[in-house]
């Protein structure tokens, strides 16, 4: 049996999982604060735009979105299997295409800022 090619994705899954676990709760907390009227300073357009315009900001945003997209796509693929959706090849294709599109979009939007 040939070696698997799952490691290609697993690297980003693992890195993404680590990052998501560390920062996702606090990010959600931030938007939740914003949504309930306690808008944090960073969400001011000027401030956030300036952050996203700097190279560090761009990199940070890209890394978070990229890793999160791929790790969640990978996990969703498995979740589908666990729920009994056995067309693993197809599911994987769809999930990874979505993650790839999201990644490209991230780059495009960042470039526009």
């Amino acid at each position: 049996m040939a070696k698997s090619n799952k490691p290609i994705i697993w690297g980003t899954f693992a890195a993404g999982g680590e990052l998501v676990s560390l920062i996702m709760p606090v990010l959600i907390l931030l938007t939740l604060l914003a949504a309930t009227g306690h808008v944090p300073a960073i969400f001011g357009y000027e401030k956030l735009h300036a952050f996203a315009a700097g190279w560090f900001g761009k990199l940070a945003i890209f890394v978070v979105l990229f890793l999160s997209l791929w790790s969640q796509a990978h996990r969703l693929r498995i979740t589908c299997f666990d729920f009994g959706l056995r067309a693993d090849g197809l599911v994987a294709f769809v999930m990874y295409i979505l993650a790839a599109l999201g990644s490209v979009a991230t780059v495009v939007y960042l470039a526009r800022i």
Partner: protein
Amino acid sequence: MSDNRLAARQIELEVLRYNPETDQEPKFQNYSVPCINEWCVLDALNYLKDNLDPTLAYRWSCHMQVCGSCGMMINGEPKLACKAMLRDYPDTIRIEPLNHFPIERDLVTVADDFIAKLKRVKPYIIPGEKRVPTEGEYKQTPAQLKRYRQFAMCINCMLCYAACPEYGLQPKFIGPAAISLAHRYNIDSRDGGRDERQEEIATDEGVWECTFVGACSEVCPKHVDPAAALQQVKAASTVDWYLEHFMSWVKK
């Protein structure tokens, strides 16, 4: 064992029975067994077999948690019958053969698949540095020993296979114990056979079938922590993949 202590507790055992010659499918049979609180479930079964129903079939030998033959589902959990102490259970105990394995008869399962997988991962030293015994031992420091020792503690009881849902869903999965065993040899300082074993375990049927449910480690009676072995194999295989494809001058 003084007999007056017997019947200190009356336990209802609900045992899944299956006789391939007379039964279409398995069904439960109930027994009321007088027990001593210090007993384990295996003691209760042995009492049952000697005194109530000699036709019950199950495997056991050592009665000391080391031979790995007495694995069964006890109240829904994969357990060693000789490690499941009655004091930890209510008065009704349900006993079934290990999940995910075909039932040969009563509590006896067909283990062929597991045994074949053990063999498949090449669980023996494939020496790196060749040496003959007359040249003395390979030096191995206590630190090097401790790196793999935990993974060498597996008693092949198959509880982890009964616990792992991915094995249940995909019986081709090489599974937790066999992959842990491969890992045990991979990280032994005397071994040089990792590449050969990777051909078996760095595959879709190998470690990549594992979704890190972690049930294997939760039920392992010997704290082998197969889930850890599998994650470590995944990490190493990922590094391998990138080295092989992007830095082929480093690896192969």
